[in-house]
């Protein structure tokens, strides 16, 4: 054990890294939902493509613990939705418009998962705080 007594602080920092990662994930999800209908500014061009957050677990040397970090944000490679809308300014020569490959249902499911993980990390923080409080209560004995 490196230093006694700093374990609770480390637990809190690890949980905070989880909070940060899940908050970043929520940001990406809200970006996807907000851009669910963003078409290309040019005729026949590609629309907004869905962004996928990635997580990786990294060893934090100052904490000596595996914290989670939000890795590179990738783009979804699946095909765009195509609608026949000749009057749309983003339509190509055949009158087809490419819409983003964002599925609101998938985004909602992801959002719930992010929310749940966020709450779990918050739960860790409050449990750790209660444990610290118990330690301080020894002084009152």
């Amino acid at each position, binding site marked *: 054990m490196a230093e006694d007594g700093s374990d609770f602080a480390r637990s809190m920092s*690890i*949980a905070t890294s989880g909070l940060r990662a899940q908050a970043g994930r929520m940001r990406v999800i809200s970006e996807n939902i907000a851009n669910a209908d963003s078409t290309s500014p040019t005729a026949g061009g590609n629309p907004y493509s869905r962004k996928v957050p990635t*997580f990786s*677990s990294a060893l934090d040397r100052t904490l000596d*613990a595996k914290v989670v970090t939000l890795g590179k944000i990738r783009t979804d490679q699946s095909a765009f939705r195509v609608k026949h809308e000749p009057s749309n300014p983003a339509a190509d020569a055949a009158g087809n418009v490419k819409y983003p490959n964002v599925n609101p249902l998938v985004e909602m499911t992801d959002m719930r998962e992010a929310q749940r993980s966020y709450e779990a990390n918050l739960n860790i923080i409050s449990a750790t705080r209660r*444990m610290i409080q118990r*330690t301080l209560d020894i002084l009152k004995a």
Partner: protein
Amino acid sequence: MAINDLPILSALRTKMQWHQERQRVLAENVSNANTPNFRPSDLVEPKFDNNGANVGGAMGSLGMMRTSATHIGVSGGGQSFRGDGGKNGFLTKPAGNAVNLEDQMLKVSANQMDYAAATSLYSRSLGLLKTAIGKR
């Protein structure tokens, strides 16, 4: 005899340290709940013998070795310099492949309650000592 040498207090301190370390491991598991290929880990529970000494893990301070029966014994120290081959502290072992948040939450609350129990036992023991020296 220092207060920390009392078997019950040192056992409780070991237990509290174990809970702190376990809280860190559980925080790691929960924060990595969405990391691919992450395997959650947990700590092996500390075991105490009848005298409150920790069996298996060497958490105590390293004492002087007694090479002769006439040497004065050092309280709280181990009997050997060799220890247990670098396996001191608590063993971390993988519990599976994926993090189960419900499971982790159960562990966190159990950890917290056990810690509360250990701290109140500790303060009760301190209270007994205070009663003995007549300060209350």
